[in-house]
């Protein structure tokens, strides 16, 4: 099924990453960029925790390391193998995410083959799955995030795998991977209901009523998560890691700047209201799950895309790696592109923030001629771009459904009263 051109994509992507890993100035610079790595995904901090772990010191005592214990075990094994192991694993995992996206796209196209379509779509071939992979693998944000050795890549891998397995109808392993993702960075837990929708919608099985499937999947999810948490407890020897990992994510104890909305807000927030606004912000990230799952339940893969976009905006420590996952999943629903209204604006907002964020960071931190507001303003622009894209997508999916149901309204303004 692979075309001749497509066969070049994975090796090219792999080699490109390996080459970049071997240019120390690029790899080392990226490893410290706040746009790319956050306190909860930084490889530098992981190295610190790893050193303590391998010397039998409780790795969470230093207050620097905030990542899940499984990563300690993984990297402890990798570093003992060979110095080449880590770049190869990173490049390999990223390439594999690309392949998983191919699988997702194929499955989605198969499932939508008999779905109602617009007249114009009938003559058009859907997107080539390998184009989706290429769009992910050669997205500069993906490459930056991968070469920075951000451990977010493992979360992204887990999310993509859970979606692919859900499309294949494998509830147990889909829940396994979404539990891993939630275990690694907490927020992907919000994807669970959408995965249940995917499984129950396209898997013809005897217990495929939504309620039954939801009950079973919730059980698997909770069981896997409990298993991970308990085995982590055994690995590091105490429950302290919970506060160090999820406590940091939820309570925002590390205010290192990133591309998100949290850090500046909570630097400025009055102490008395800090807890209240933490609750508001964290609830805000989760408030969209139920409405989206109800309203767009006919397109559960699309719900996953929107929610990953939500995560990349509303999580407490976002980085460009989150946007990379969101933008990577986006072409799966390529039929929506013709409804997009803000494409030009959004592209420009991404480019604008990509150009100005490093400049303003330099002005603030090194030149001293700017201040924190400069960098924060750029993160606002970046997130404005993402929000516009999300609004556009949700509009597109609703309008397309409406147009399929009411073909006579195509091209006309629909006023919602």
């Amino acid at each position, binding site marked *: 099924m692979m075309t001749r051109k497509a066969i070049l994509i994975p090796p090219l992507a792999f080699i490109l990453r390996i080459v970049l890993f071997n240019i120390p100035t690029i790899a080392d610079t990226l490893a410290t960029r706040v746009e790319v790595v956050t306190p909860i995904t930084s490889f530098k901090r992981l190295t610190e925790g790893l050193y303590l772990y391998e010397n039998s010191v409780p790795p969470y005592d230093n207050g620097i390391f905030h990542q899940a214990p499984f990563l300690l075990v993984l990297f402890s094994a990798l570093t003992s193998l060979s110095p080449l192991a880590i770049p190869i694993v990173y490049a390999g995992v990223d390439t594999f995410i690309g392949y998983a996206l191919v699988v997702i796209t194929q499955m989605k196209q198969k499932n939508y083959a008999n779905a109602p379509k617009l007249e114009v779509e009938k003559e058009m071939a859907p997107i080539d799955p390998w184009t989706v992979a290429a769009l992910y693998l050669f997205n500069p944000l993906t490459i930056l995030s991968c070469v920075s050795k951000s451990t977010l890549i493992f979360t992204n891998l887990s999310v993509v795998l859970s979606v692919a397995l859900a499309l294949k109808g494998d509830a147990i392993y889909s829940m396994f991977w979404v539990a891993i993702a939630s275990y690694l960075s907490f927020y992907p837990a919000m994807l669970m209901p959408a995965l249940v929708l995917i499984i129950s919608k396209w898997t013809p099985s005897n217990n495929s009523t939504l309620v039954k499937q939801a009950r079973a999947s919730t059980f698997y999810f909770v069981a896997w998560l409990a298993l991970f948490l308990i085995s982590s407890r055994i690995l590091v020897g105490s429950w302290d890691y919970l506060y160090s990992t999820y406590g940091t994510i939820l309570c925002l104890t590390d205010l290192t700047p990133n591309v998100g909305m949290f850090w500046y807000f909570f630097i400025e927030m009055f102490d*008395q*209201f800090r807890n*209240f606004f*933490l609750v508001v912000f964290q609830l805000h990230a989760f*408030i969209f799950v*139920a409405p989206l799952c*109800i*309203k767009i339940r006919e397109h559960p893969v699309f719900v996953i895309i929107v929610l990953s976009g939500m995560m990349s905006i509303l999580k407490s420590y976002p980085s460009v790696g989150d946007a990379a996952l969101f933008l990577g999943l986006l072409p799966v629903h390529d039929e929506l592109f013709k409804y997009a209204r803000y494409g030009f604006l959004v592209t420009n907002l991404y480019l604008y923030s990509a150009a100005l964020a490093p400049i303003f960071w330099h002005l603030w931190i090194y030149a001293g001629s700017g201040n924190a507001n400069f960098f924060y303003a750029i993160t606002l622009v970046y997130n404005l771009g993402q929000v516009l894209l999300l609004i556009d997508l949700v509009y597109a999916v609703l309008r397309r459904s409406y147009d399929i149901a009411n073909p006579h309204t195509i091209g006309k303004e629909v006023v919602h009263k």
Partner: protein
Amino acid sequence: MPDSTKRLVIASVWAVVLLGLPLWWKTTAVYRAQLPFSQIDSWAERKACQLSFPSTFVIHLASIADGEPQAHNRPLDFAVIQETITSHVNNRLASTNARECVEFPLHVNIQNWPITSDMKNLLHHIEPSNSKQVIAIADIEEVSSAVITAILKGERERVRSLACDSELTERSNLDGARTMKFSPTYQMTFSLMNGNPDSLQVDWDIEAAVNTYLKPFISEVSLVSNFTVDSQIQHYADLAVTPQFMERQKLPSYYYLTPQTLPHFINSAEWNLASAISSYPTINFILYIPAADKTPLRIHDDKGQPLRSNAFLIPRWGGIAIKNPPKAASGKLEFSKEDLKPFMEIFVAQLRGLIGIHDLKKTMSSLESSYEISLAPTPQTAVTVIEMDAVVKQRIAENVVNSIATLKSLAQLVMDIPNMVVLDHIRTEVQLSLDSLNQACQALQQEDYLKALQHSIHAIERSEKAFFDPTMVSMLYFPDEHKYAIYMPLFVPVSVPLIMAVIKQLKEYKKEKREQKVKAE
């Protein structure tokens, strides 16, 4: 079908909002531990416990010296003498202020003291000037009350002014201005400043000098405050002021500093005297070696005469001594322990002033008395027991008054700002501080000054810990109206569509009901 979807969506959003309400309540609750306001008030009004600084004097009276002929065979009535002395002293020291907030009970205790030969050398401490062999009762009374008055006068005045007067009068008091603010520990820094190391290298054996000349004094006063000692040598220590030149006929000419320029002597921009080692208050002592082109450097007094000591004290900061290097000296100048002795003497004298030890001799000489009183010298420690006693009393009064004032300000602050969070540990500190005050006051009444000092130190430390707690900053809190400004920017835009959606759904629901009714009919 689309209607039920819409309702589900709205309900799911509202469910999260409603889930947030108890969290809102929980996270913005203002926790206020109950502070013991009434106790603080009663302390502030000096009603909780009467401060009293009792003193007891034991007079050893040699009634019959061995072998001496007895002029009067009448036995001395000790009780009468005690009473007379007490009333004499009290009359002389009576406060002009009608409202007395401190008590000074005085106990005079006369004991019969058979003199043995080995005690004779002690006798000259208090010796009537007319050198009569036999001392009349009137003389005993007169001498004793003069001595006691002399001892008590200064210390009583200071304690009274500390305890009773407002801070303003305390500031105007020159002695008070010189003394460092109380701290349980001070950091003492000895600095050797070299004006120009190009022509002269300097070094000093400060450790030995401190151990020999300062240690005994420090260990004596460690009862009140501890000291950490460190030293440094700084080169290229330029003067911030330009000394004036005095040209003299026949005599060698010299440079001099006038009293007006002395406050600017410290070159705080360039001399790195601030220490980051500890947060204790620092007492600086500087031995300054002027550069060759400014030697010899002297200090003039008000009348334009050079000071013999060539040293001066900066109130609440430290002391400075200037040492002009000998003309012949070139290359290297090293101060041995013995060389440093005169400077250490100066520094110890300055330190006495800085930590609030008052010269008893000065008070004595100011009193009109027909008797000459001499005090036993203190060869080692540079502080007498009586002086130490006065310092302890003074510091107790200062600590008690200051901790009461701190607690009072804290109570005022908490009452003024109803939104202020008062955590449990603040209440604990306040309570402990009050307890310490109580214990200090009781110890005072029992004349146990050491215990009182310890408790008063605890009281001031705890009250300041509570007052300077990071959560007790008034700037963090604001009136209720400002909360609207905090909530509105986010919640008004969010709540408008939410509420509108609910209203719209309710309207539609009513309409449906009506239609159903119409249909049914």
